[in-house]
């Protein structure tokens, strides 16, 4: 059930929702008191460190840990032998097991090979050097196009491709082929007046959260344990660790620390099972903190891609057919999320004939993780580039051209389903009203403006929320999703709104796995939607109890009591004349009316509602160096309902900044030896403060009928349009259309020189 079925009150006036109070965890976070992953220590803890493969692909002939074990201060050394295969043939679990610790072969530069726990970090570091691993280096491949060649080295032994008819007989690096679409593209292209066809390549990027992965594990010989960990999903940490180590979930209590960014990268596990395994072997708590180099080499970056796209349109700009072939590598196990790319590719548009094909390809690179609207920025770069090229060739206004093709309620989406009420057209129409669009690009050499749209699915999922009414009438609210960007404030606002009490009366905590029912990971822009929906319903359940208590106090029937602005009141004149009872009054006598008062709510929240946005970018290109400066940037997006507008704006701005970084400079650079060349913030170049302008935001509110207040997830969509918007702005400034991401200075300068000739 999504919610109680009450429709969103059109034009509803909110008291708390939509205001901008200070976040409840704010003081801790500006004074340094907030405790993140690496800020916790357990009594008697050891320090764990990981030995990693220097080879992109190698057989492990032998591992000798005896010298390390003898080093004074070393308490445990583990290898794959300490993590037996308990997967029961489940391929997904097997991939996670192998990714956590290499077994017979290492599959990428940085793949974990062994781990130690010692009494100090320096002893643990010294012990790693004493572990002798004999490798037999195998041929490797790190580029998706190279990996698809018939003579490519087979990564992880290769695989028989799924989704291809007839089924291939020979192994390759292609795990699966996906196909989506409808209509008849051959007919559509035949009907077109203009056809644009282009190829694109995009490099892998990293979420670049500032806090490296960290955890402290404590596991006893009886299988009972605790962990403090920075993660987007502590329930998932429990599930994965329990399965991998053969433990019962009830015996593991996982507490999520404050989290220093995730963006999808902390939905996967890396060091956590190792910390538990070391702790079990040493019978001591073990703390593990990744270095920044480890984060880049051995966590989950995005896929890298190679794409081909063809779009046909009539002279008036109406698209008649669209076809894309998308190849993603996402590491040695598949799971590049190319299927989501193929689905999201043309999702902004109402297309009569459309086909997308996706190939999931193995490479000797780290296993890809989700990164904010995973896959959508990559494919949308291609789509928005081609759409703009058609508009340019036809001499059409970029916004009008997109409006002509924009998906709307009733559109059959490119991935199949028919859309309900959606906000893409609204964002495009709102573009025309922005100060940015109404003002020409500031005068200067080689400047241009670009526009791009973006789509994201948004998710809901398993959610549990528990609300207790304290004896003084204040509220303790427990939800189970790490607060990654202000969700305590949003939950408190929704609780306050529904109860009709001041925001300050609600204290919101992120519960550990033993204290609250199951919650899905903080991902898919789900928290404000799903945990918010559950908070509202938990409040409604608490209100029901409080009304019943008031009824008891007054000696009237329960349905004769109504709830208004934090008070129980007789529903009407017939119910009797009683002074309204406040929450504090009801709570104060709770022990005499039936005991403690609480409301809880558990659901699988569906009905998240898809999300759309449109971005405008002005850039200047230094034509002698190929450097791009972003002069002005505006984000327009449908939020359904903005619970705390400051944090909605923050999501828009932060997503745009990440997208700009992806567009211009961020990339994984692999050497010929298959090793990552830029595993640090020095050469993996995320935008710094002086790289960006102020980022203007426009919040549109087209209510999501699936949420009591109309909320849509907002977190992911903002990273989708920037790559296309910047590419289109560069094209407007220079006449050069870039096919490669990032559009870094050497590549752009080369393209500019090509244009001159």
């Amino acid at each position, binding site marked *: *059930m*999504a919610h109680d079925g009450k429709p969103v009150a059109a034009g509803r006036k909110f008291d708390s929702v939509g205001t901008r109070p200070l976040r409840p965890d704010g003081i801790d976070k500006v004074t340094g008191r907030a405790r993140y992953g690496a800020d916790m220590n357990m009594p008697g803890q050891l320090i764990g460190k990981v030995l990693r493969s220097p080879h992109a692909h190698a057989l492990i002939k032998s591992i000798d840990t005896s010298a390390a074990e003898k080093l004074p201060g070393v308490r445990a050394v583990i290898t794959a032998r300490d993590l037996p295969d308990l997967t029961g043939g489940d391929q997904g679990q097997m991939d996670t097991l192998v990714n956590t610790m290499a077994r017979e072969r290492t599959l990428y530069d940085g793949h974990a090979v062994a781990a130690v726990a010692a009494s100090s970090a320096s002893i643990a570091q010294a012990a790693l050097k004493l572990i002798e691993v004999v490798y037999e280096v195998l041929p490797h491949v790190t580029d998706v196009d190279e990996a698809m060649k018939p003579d490519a080295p087979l990564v992880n032994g290769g695989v028989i491709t*799924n*989704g*291809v*008819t007839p*089924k291939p007989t020979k192994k390759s690096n292609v795990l699966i082929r*996906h196909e989506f679409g409808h209509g008849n593209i051959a007919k559509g292209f035949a009907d077109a007046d203009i056809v644009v066809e282009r190829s694109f390549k995009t490099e892998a990027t990293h*979420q670049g959260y500032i806090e490296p992965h960290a955890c402290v594990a404590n596991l006893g010989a009886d299988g009972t344990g605790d962990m403090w960990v920075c993660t987007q999903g502590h329930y998932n940490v429990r599930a994965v660790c329990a399965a991998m180590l053969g433990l019962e979930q009830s015996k593991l209590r996982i507490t999520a620390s404050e989290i220093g960014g*995730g*963006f*999808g*990268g902390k*939905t996967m596990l890396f060091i956590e099972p190792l910390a538990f395994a070391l702790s079990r072997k040493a019978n001591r708590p073990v703390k593990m903190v990744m270095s920044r180099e480890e984060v880049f080499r051995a966590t989950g970056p995005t896929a890298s891609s190679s794409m081909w796209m063809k779009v046909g349109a009539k002279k008036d700009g109406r698209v008649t057919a669209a076809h894309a072939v998308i190849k993603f590598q996402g590491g040695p196990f598949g799971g590049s*999320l190319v*299927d*989501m790319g193929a*689905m999201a590719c043309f999702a902004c548009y109402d297309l009569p004939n459309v086909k997308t094909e996706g190939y999931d390809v193995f490479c000797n690179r780290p296993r890809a993780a*989700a*990164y*904010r*609207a*995973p896959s959508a920025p990559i494919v949308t770069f291609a789509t928005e580039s081609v759409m703009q090229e058609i508009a340019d060739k036809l001499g059409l206004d970029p916004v009008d051209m997109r409006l002509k093709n924009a998906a709307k309620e009733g559109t059959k*989406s490119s*991935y*199949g*389903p*028919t*859309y*309900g009420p959606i906000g893409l057209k609204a964002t495009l129409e709102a573009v025309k009203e922005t100060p940015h669009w109404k003002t020409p690009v500031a005068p200067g050499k080689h400047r241009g403006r670009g526009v791009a749209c973006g789509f*994201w*699915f*948004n*998710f*809901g*999922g*398993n959610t549990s929320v528990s609300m207790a009414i304290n004896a003084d009438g204040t509220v303790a609210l427990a939800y189970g999703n790490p607060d990654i960007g202000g969700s305590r404030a949003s939950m408190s606002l929704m609780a306050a709104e529904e109860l009709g009490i001041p925001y300050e009366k609600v204290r919101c905590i992120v519960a550990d796995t033993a204290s609250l029912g199951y919650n899905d990971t903080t*991902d*898919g*822009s*789900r928290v404000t939607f799903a945990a918010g929906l559950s908070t509202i319903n938990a409040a409604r359940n608490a209100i029901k109890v409080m009304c019943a208590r008031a009824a008891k106090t007054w000696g009237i029937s329960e349905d004769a009591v109504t709830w208004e602005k934090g008070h129980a009141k007789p529903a009407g004149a017939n119910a009797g004349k009683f002074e309204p009872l406040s929450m504090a009054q009801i709570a104060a006598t709770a022990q005499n009316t039936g005991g403690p008062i609480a409301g809880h709510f558990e659901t*699988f929240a*569906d*009905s*998240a509602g*898809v999300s759309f946005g449109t971005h405008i970018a002005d850039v200047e290109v230094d034509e002698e160096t190929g450097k791009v400066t972003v002069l002005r940037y505006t984000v327009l997006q449908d939020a359904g309902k903005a619970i705390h507008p400051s944090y909605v704006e923050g999501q828009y701005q932060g997503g745009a900044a990440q997208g700009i970084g992806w567009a211009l400079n961020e990339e994984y650079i692999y050497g010929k030896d298959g090793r990552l060349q830029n595993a640090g913030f020095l050469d993996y170049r995320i935008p710094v403060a002086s790289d960006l302008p102020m980022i203007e935001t426009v919040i549109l509110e087209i209510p999501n009928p*699936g949420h009591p207040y109309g909320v849509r997830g907002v*977190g*992911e969509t903002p990273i989708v349009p920037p790559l296309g918007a910047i590419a289109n702005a560069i094209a407007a400034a220079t006449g050069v259309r870039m096919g490669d991401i990032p559009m870094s200075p050497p590549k752009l300068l080369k393209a500019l020189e090509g244009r001159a000739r």
Partner: protein
Amino acid sequence: MSQAGGETEFVVEAATIQEMLTRLGDAHPALRPLLAKSVSVVVDGQLYRGAWQKPLREGAEIYLLPPMQGG
């Protein structure tokens, strides 16, 4: 769906998502592992990763999509 002999559209009599998936598995046993493994179900434009007791209306538009995840 290569597991269903290349067929991509199916008509099934079912009152809920759960029943629909069961019937589909009965008609095409090769699909069962895929259906069991977790699919995303879209009913009349609304994505359901769970909520398999969701009642289906007559003539509902249903899509089975790969399992999805976000960041």
